[in-house]
């Protein structure tokens, strides 16, 4: 495979792997935990390295995952004191752990390949140079790690889909039914940690956060089914990864930075244009409701004065704007729409209700 294809493949796989647990983080309103975990895993890696003095030791991986879970536990501990809220607890815990890691690197590991830039942004473009052989295949190590992470996440979510859904939607019922939501919670956090560690080497912590949060948040706006949200998150993450790669290629900028940007752009597009929940659809709906409601007001007004002596005064199109205190242009437009919709009709200088208009007014009066 050509290196640029490999880089894109790695990015797509990492994006998919991050999006899956990200869906549950977003639904549990714990998106910022991905921020914390993706930074504090560095401390686990550094501690593992200082113990083994070997960057290839599996202990680094174990330490990193454990540190991710420890981060969650510490956040809960601080929150549990009742003195600060969870967002503040996250903001307190992870910088401490992350800065300990940074200090340890600069003090004890300055001469090894563990630098802060690569932690934040990763070294995706160099990933094809670090290769492993597996079953006779010559693969980039990051590709293999990404694939294993993705498959592990697919397997776990596939197996425990029902438990994850219940514990996320209604932790109280999950506990009452014996599904140990705390266990599910820490299982999910372990999954997030493993994913963060697996992805972090290739794409860095910033992209891990972007890929865990932005695609699920975008998918949330597009669907109201959990299974579809998972699928859409994976697709949006993968598309952001490929779009980011080409953006970086054309602008000659950081690949991870461009991918994170594109995941933000993908969310922005959904935020604006998602059918039903997007900003544009919402504005259109509100505009529509405004006209509908104005027509209801008009029919109710006509009904109230129907057949009375002051009807000529109250119900003439020219006097309407003065009585309802509507701007003349607005009043004229409401009358035009109501006429077009068959709610009212003009009888000379008098506006009268049609049968449909009367029904609408009667329904409106019951509201």
């Amino acid at each position, binding site marked *: 495979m050509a290196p640029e294809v490999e880089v894109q493949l790695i990015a797509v796989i990492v994006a998919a792997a991050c999006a899956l647990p990200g869906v549950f983080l977003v*639904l549990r309103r714990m998106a910022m935990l991905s921020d914390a975990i993706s930074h504090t895993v560095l401390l686990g890696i550094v501690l593992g390295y200082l113990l083994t003095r070997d960057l290839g030791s599996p202990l680094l991986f174990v330490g990193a995952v454990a540190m991710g879970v420890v981060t969650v536990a510490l956040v809960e501990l601080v929150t549990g004191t009742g003195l600060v809220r969870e967002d503040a607890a996250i903001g307190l815990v992870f910088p401490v752990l992350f800065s300990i890691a940074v200090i340890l690197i600069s003090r004890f590991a300055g001469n090894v390949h563990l630098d802060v830039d690569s932690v934040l942004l990763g070294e995706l473009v160099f990933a094809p140079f670090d290769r492993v052989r597996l079953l006779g295949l010559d693969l980039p190590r990051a590709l293999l790690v990404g694939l294993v992470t993705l498959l592990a996440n697919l397997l776990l979510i596939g197996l425990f889909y*029902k438990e994850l859904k*219940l514990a996320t*939607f209604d932790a109280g*019922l999950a506990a*009452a039914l014996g*599904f140990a939501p705390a266990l599910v919670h820490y299982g999910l956090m372990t999954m997030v940690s493993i994913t963060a560690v697996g992805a972090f080497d290739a794409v860095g912590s910033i992209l891990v956060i972007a890929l865990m949060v932005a695609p699920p948040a975008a998918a*949330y706006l597009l669907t109201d089914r959990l299974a579809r949200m998972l699928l859409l998150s994976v697709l949006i993450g993968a598309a952001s990864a490929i779009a980011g790669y080409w953006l970086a290629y054309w602008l000659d900028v950081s690949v991870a930075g461009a991918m994170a940007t594109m995941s933000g752009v993908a969310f922005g597009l959904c935020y604006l244009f998602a059918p039903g929940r997007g900003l544009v659809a919402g504005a259109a709906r509100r505009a529509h409701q405004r006209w509908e409601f104005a027509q209801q007001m008009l029919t109710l007004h006509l009904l109230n004065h129907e057949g009375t002596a002051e009807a000529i005064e109250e119900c003439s199109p020219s006097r309407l704007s003065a009585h309802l205190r509507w701007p003349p242009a607005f009043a004229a437009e409401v009358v035009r729409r109501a006429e077009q919709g068959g709610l009212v009709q003009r009888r000379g200088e008098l506006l009268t209700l049609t049968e449909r208009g009367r029904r609408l007014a009667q329904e409106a009066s019951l509201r």
Partner: protein
Amino acid sequence: MHDALTITDLTVAYRDRPVLWDVDLSVPAGVLMAIVGPNGAGKTTLIKATLGLVRPAAGQTLIFGRPYAEQRRLVAYVPQRGSVDWDFPTTVLDVVMMGRYGSLGWLRRPGVRERDQALAALEQVHMAEFAGRQISQLSGGQQQRVFLARALVQDAQIYFMDEPFQGVDAVTERAIVAVLRNLRAAGKTVVVVHHDLQTVPEYFDWVTLINVRRIASGPVAEVFTEANLRATYGGRIAFLGQQGAAASAVGDLAADEATG
């Protein structure tokens, strides 16, 4: 035969503030029981402690003579409607099927059977036509009926419901009352946290009055008295005497509590 629910010496505390103070309670099987008491009296906590959702400082609760952990399959639970996120991406039918998860256990997936049971339960609460609806598109009363249907598919022996009548429309209130009566007719035990004192004698045959401590518990005709209500609500309540028997509350309780 064991009582459906036996609570002995139950104390639940938040640090050093008791929420429930040495409560004893026995609920015979087959009754429809209301738990009433002012805000902060520990009504919800009583249910949560029974279901193992909060850890008691002392005492124990038994379901048909055994600890809850051994009797989960006999118990159904309707939490307060506001306790979940109704924007969660799922459908009415899916939420109702969650009631079957306990019987399925870990790993097993719900199938056609669970689907049919969920649809039947939705039928009972007049929500069948909403089965495919996203849950955020429901009114408060409809949400409550979905929760009720979810408890019905649990097919339990004892049902705990936390304020099912809270803020619901008349249609929902009638639907819930009908379901409660069906459950009693089928010999089930139902425990309901309830706020509207006026409807207690009409809807329930058993009542427990609590205000941190248990004030009284027994058949409505015997214990739903003005004296017990005064003891529960601390005299901050006015009564309209009703033929010397159960009193019905008037006056704005919430306003009284705000000033008291």
